[in-house]
């Protein structure tokens, strides 16, 4: 139609909904032995379905993770991380549901937290309490509180997505120096007297989206950026690739006759200068 804007590209993130797991409890146990949590997880998945978003099935991923042989069922402390890393999910939502017994009636507390799977950044947090009833039908109470809080969780997640579109995604960059290297972060690397840390920071300023970054800390052999904003799309309109950012950084260091190796884990980049 005349005058209508072209639709901006729209990407569906992949979502996985998991139970909150206290230390020493596996994801499978937390899911299969807690009906309240299963009801809550189903309500969360239902809400995503209604918004046209598919979710990754938790049980299938648990089976897949166990079948790879990479992790044993009894390594419970690590199982959650393994499942998330192997799931391919962009976002995971942790669900906790607790029954409350009082003399004035019973209720359910629902705690929902949505995270970016790679950076660990929190997208949304909601806590809700159902009304009190003289009932032991806690599944019904979970539904009541989920009906209010889950849509609000999705709305908050969408606000964060809008923020990402406007202000870029977060990656982390850690630059370390090999023990055997002659370089340190405060070694002068050019005729102007700039330190190694200066040129690295200047590079990040230039390459970060809208110049947004944050330095977590610096020592004589390590410089860590816990927030570096990168655009969602590159100049060609394709999804921004973290591997390309890494390659460009390595090439930049080469121009200063500095060699390094790299490790990429999701949105986390680790460079080691030789």
């Amino acid at each position, binding site marked *: 139609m005349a005058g209508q804007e072209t639709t901006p590209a*729209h990407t*569906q993130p992949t979502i996985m909904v998991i139970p909150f797991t206290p230390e020493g409890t596996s994801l499978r146990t937390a899911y299969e032995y807690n009906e309240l949590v299963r009801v809550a997880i189903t309500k969360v998945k239902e809400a995503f379905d209604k918004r046209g978003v598919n979710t990754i099935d938790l049980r299938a991923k648990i089976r897949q993770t166990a079948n790879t042989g990479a992790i044993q069922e009894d390594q419970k402390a690590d199982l959650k991380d393994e499942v998330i890393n192997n799931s391919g999910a962009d976002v995971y939502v942790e669900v906790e549901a607790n029954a409350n017994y009082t003399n004035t009636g019973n209720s359910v507390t629902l705690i929902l937290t949505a995270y970016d799977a790679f950076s660990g950044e929190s997208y949304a947090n909601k806590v809700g309490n159902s009304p009190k009833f003289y009932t032991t039908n806690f599944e019904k109470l979970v539904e009541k509180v989920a009906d*209010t809080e889950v849509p*609000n969780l999705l*709305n*908050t*997640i969408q606000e964060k997505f*809008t923020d990402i579109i406007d202000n870029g995604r977060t990656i982390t960059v850690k630059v370390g120096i090999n023990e055997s290297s002659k370089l340190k972060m405060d070694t002068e690397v050019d005729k102007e007297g700039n330190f190694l840390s200066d040129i690295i920071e200047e590079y990040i300023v230039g390459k970060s989206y809208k110049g947004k970054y944050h330095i977590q800390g610096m020592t004589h052999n390590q410089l860590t950026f816990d927030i570096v904003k990168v655009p*969602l799309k590159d100049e060609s309109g394709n999804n921004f690739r973290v591997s390309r950012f890494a390659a460009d950084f390595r090439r930049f260091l080469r121009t200063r006759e500095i060699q390094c190796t790299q490790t990429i884990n999701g949105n986390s980049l680790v460079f080691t200068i030789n």
Partner: protein
Amino acid sequence: MKTSTIGLILTFIILSCSTAKKPAEQAVSYEYQRSGMVNLSGQQNGLLTVKSVQTAENINKAVVFAEINALENILFRGIPGSFQADPVISNEKEAMAKSKKVLEDLIFNEGYRTFMTDSQLAERQDSKGAVTVTQQVTFDIPALRKHLEQNRVIRKFGL
């Protein structure tokens, strides 16, 4: 003579007072103004029911104002305590600039009726030249959201 003159004057004064018409009371015309007097009344399966208070010179106009007020609060403010605690449209100014016609048709040209599943008068207060109503209005929020997504007022869920 004097007495008859005075009497004539008095008679004239009395007659003019009794036949003089009082100037017609000017009817006050109320214009719509958004208010925050919209509170959650109920919610179920995506249907959101709120009570909205508005005033106008007649009841029909007041009811329409209340319905518009309810919708505007849902769209631009959110309804505390409900599943739509955040506004459907997070940036009103930007949305109005980008999608003025769509929003005007929806809000002020009765487009909202498609998404309004119920509208009941809950309370009515009459005062001189004004009617204040509390209208209980129900909107189908998923349908409203879909309409706004299809008309690119808001983004679909995702990046």
